[in-house]
C-alpha cells in the first residue's frame, strides 16, 4: 500500500516533466498498477477529483460512471482521485460501492497529483492527452450554475466534449473552466509538499 503510494508519488512528476519518454505508473487502492501512457491505444487520461462527503461531488457519481462506461473502451483511462487525508483505501472502497463508482480509485493524500493538475475543487476533472499534456481542467458539465443553483440538466458537457475532441484526433489547446463544489483542504500539507 505504502509502496503503491510512493510509486505514484515518484512516477508522476517525472512523467509530466518529460511526458513523451516517461512511463508513468498509477497504483489504485487495490494495488493494481496502471500504465495508461504506455499503451499507444490511450487517447486520453482523466483524473476526476472527489470528496466522499461533498454533496456536489456525490450528485455526479452516476454521470461519472456513465462517462467511464462510455469512454473506457475508446481508449480513455479514467481514475477517481481522493485528495482527502481522512479517506483511506477502505473508506474509498465503501464510498465507491455506495455510489456505484466503477473506475479505478487512487489516493492522493500528499496532493502531488492534485497540485500537478492545479485542481482545487471537487468534483473537478483534469484531462491529459495521450502524450501527457494537460488539455482540460474544470467542471464535468454546467449542471450547477453556482452554489445551490442547479439546472434541470446541463447545457454544456465540457468533459465529454473534450474527450470527444481528443478521440476525433483533434489537437487541443489547454482550456479551463470553473468547477462548482467543495474546496480541497491543503492546510495540512507539509511545506516541502508545495
Amino acid at each position: 500500500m505504502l509502496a503503491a503510494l510512493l510509486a505514484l508519488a515518484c512516477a508522476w512528476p517525472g512523467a509530466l516533466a518529460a511526458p513523451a519518454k516517461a512511463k508513468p505508473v498509477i497504483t489504485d487502492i487495490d494495488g493494481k498498477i496502471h500504465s495508461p501512457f504506455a499503451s499507444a491505444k490511450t487517447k486520453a487520461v482523466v483524473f476526476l477529483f472527489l470528496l466522499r462527503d461533498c454533496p456536489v461531488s456525490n450528485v455526479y457519481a452516476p454521470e461519472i460512471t456513465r462517462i467511464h462506461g462510455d469512454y473506457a473502451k475508446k481508449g480513455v483511462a479514467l481514475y477517481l482521485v481522493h485528495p482527502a487525508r481522512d479517506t483511506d483505501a477502505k473508506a474509498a472502497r465503501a464510498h465507491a460501492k455506495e455510489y456505484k463508482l466503477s473506475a479505478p480509485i487512487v489516493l492522493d493524500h500528499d496532493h502531488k497529483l492534485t497540485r500537478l493538475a492545479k485542481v482545487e475543487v471537487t468534483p473537478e476533472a483534469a484531462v491529459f492527452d495521450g502524450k501527457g499534456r494537460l488539455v482540460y481542467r474544470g467542471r464535468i458539465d454546467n449542471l450547477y450554475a453556482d452554489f445551490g443553483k442547479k439546472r434541470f440538466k446541463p447545457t454544456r458537457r465540457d468533459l465529454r466534449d473534450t474527450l470527444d475532441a481528443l478521440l476525433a484526433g483533434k489537437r487541443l489547446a489547454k482550456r479551463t473552466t470553473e468547477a462548482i463544489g467543495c474546496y480541497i483542504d491543503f492546510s495540512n500539507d507539509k511545506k516541502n509538499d508545495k
Partner: protein
Amino acid sequence: MTNKLIRAGLALAGFAALQSSATAAAKAKPTFTEDIAPIIYNNCTECHRDGQAAPFTLRTYSDVKKRARLISKVTQDGYMPPWHPVEGHGKFVDERRLTADELATLKNWHKSGMAEGPADKLPEPPQFASDWLLGKPDLIVQMPKAYTVKADGPDIYRNFVIPLDLKEEKWVAGFEVRPSARAVLHHVILRIDQTGESRKADGAKGTPGFSGMRGIGRSARGSRRGGSNDVFSGSLGGLGGWAVGGTPRILPLGLARKLPAGADIVLNSHFHPSGKEEDEQTTIGLYFTDKKPERTLIGFQIPPVFGSISGLDIPAGESNYELASKFTTPVAIDLIGVGAHMHYIGHTAKATATLPDGTVKPLFYIDDWDFNWQGRYTYDKPLRLPAGTTVEGSVTFDNSDANPHNPFNPPRRIKWGLESTDEMGSVIFSAVPANEADLDEFNAAVRDHVIDEARLMAERRLGERAGGGRSGRGGNIANRLEQFRNRRPGSNSGSRLGGDWRGRLGARLKELDKNNNGEIEPDEIDDRSRRTIRFIDTNKDGRVSKEELSRISGR
C-alpha cells in the same frame, strides 16, 4: 405538552441570547475556540450534525478547519445559512442571518490560516436533547410506503398520502417533519385532502405517491364556509411547510389549523437526487391544542387567483413578467406569517401594506426566488394592520435562458399549471382578525377578492374570444402583457371590470343552460367552461344556482 413547549422555548431563548453576545468586532486573526466556534455553534451545527439534513458535520475544530474556504465562500455569497427574505421587509422568528462582523470573522479566519486558539476558551457545544425538537408529539404518522428516489436526474416533486382516519377533528398547533433519507428530501408542504381523491391517486401507477396537485386543497362538500381548509381562504388546505434547516414552531396566539375528521394529510415533497438511490419514508410529528382555538387563522394570497383563469402566460425569453394585485382589508387584522409560492422561473415576490394614514410598511421581499426554499415565515410578533389597509403583492418571473432554473433550454412559453414545470405565483399570508367578531366580514372580503379577480380574468378571456376568435395565443400576448403591466388595481369591488362584461358573461352562461331552468346543472357544463365555472360556483356543489348566477349579473 405545554411543559415541553415551555422548555423548548427556554432552550431557544437561551440560544438567542448566546447569539447576540457573539457579535464582537471582527479580528484580523480570529481563532476557532474564541471566535469561530460561537458562530458555527449558533448558526450551523443544528443542521450540520449527525442525523440531520446537512451533508457534513460542523462541530469540531477539524470539521470546520477543513471546510474553512467553503464556509467563507458560501457565507459571503449568502448561500449559507439559508435565509431568503430580504432584510428590512418584515422581521421573522428564527431568522438565520450572519452579521457583518461574523461574516468578516469567518473570512479572516480562513485568510489568516485557521488558528485553533486556547482550548479553555471553547464554548460548550450545543446540546440537542430530544429527537423531537418540540418534545414528544401528540400524534406520530408516517408515509405508509417508502418512495425510492433515483440516483440522479432532475429534482422530483411528488405527493404522498398519509391516511389519518381521525374520528374527530383536531387542531394542529405545530408539526415536525422527519425524513428517513435526509440527503434527498429537501422540502415538504403539508396539505389536507378531504375529498379522498388523493387517496385514490396515490400509488395508482404502481409507485407510491402521485404527481401534480390533484384533489389537494379542496374541502369536502358542505364544509363550513371560511374554515382554514377552505380553498377560498387561500391556504390551499395546508398545515404549512418545512424545508431543510427549518425549525419546527408552535403557532403564536394559541392558534391552530384545523384537521377535520376523516381528512388525509398529503405531503407535497421535493427531492434532490443525491448520487445514490435512497428510500424516503417521511415521519410527521403533530402537536395538537386541547381545544378549538379562540381565534381563527385565515389564509389569503395576493394575487388571489389560482387556475388557468389566472391568465398567467409567460412568453419564452421574457425576463421580467409580473403578476400583481391588491387587497384592502375591511377590518383590523394581525398578520401571523407570510411566504411565497412560485415554481422554477419565479424570480421575485414582494408585498407591502399601505395603512389608512398613508404609512407604507414593507411586509415581505424575496429578491432571488429559489424554488428549493419555499419557506413560510412567521413574523416575530403578529403584525397589526388597521381596517382599510391595502396589501399589495407582486410576483415576477424570469423565463429567459439567463435563468439557470429555467426547466427549458431554449426557453418555452410557460402557462399556469399544477406541474412543477408550469407556473403559478402568489404571496401567501396567514392572519387573524384583531376581533374574532369580524371573522365573517374578513372571510367575505377575502372571498370577494378571489371572485373579483377570477371574474376579471374570465372577462379578459371571454373578451379575447369574442374579439379575436380563437387566436388568443400569439398576437394578443403583447396586449395582455401591457394590460398586466399597466393595470392599476382599485378597490375590491367589482367596479374594475370595464365594459359590458356582465352581459357577455351572462350570455355565455345562458348558452350553457340548455334546459332553460335558470340554473346550470353539472351535465350542462362543457369542458371549455369548467374552469370558469369553478369560480362562479362559489359553494362548490358542482352546479351554478340561480343565486350564484344573479351574483354575477346583478352585483
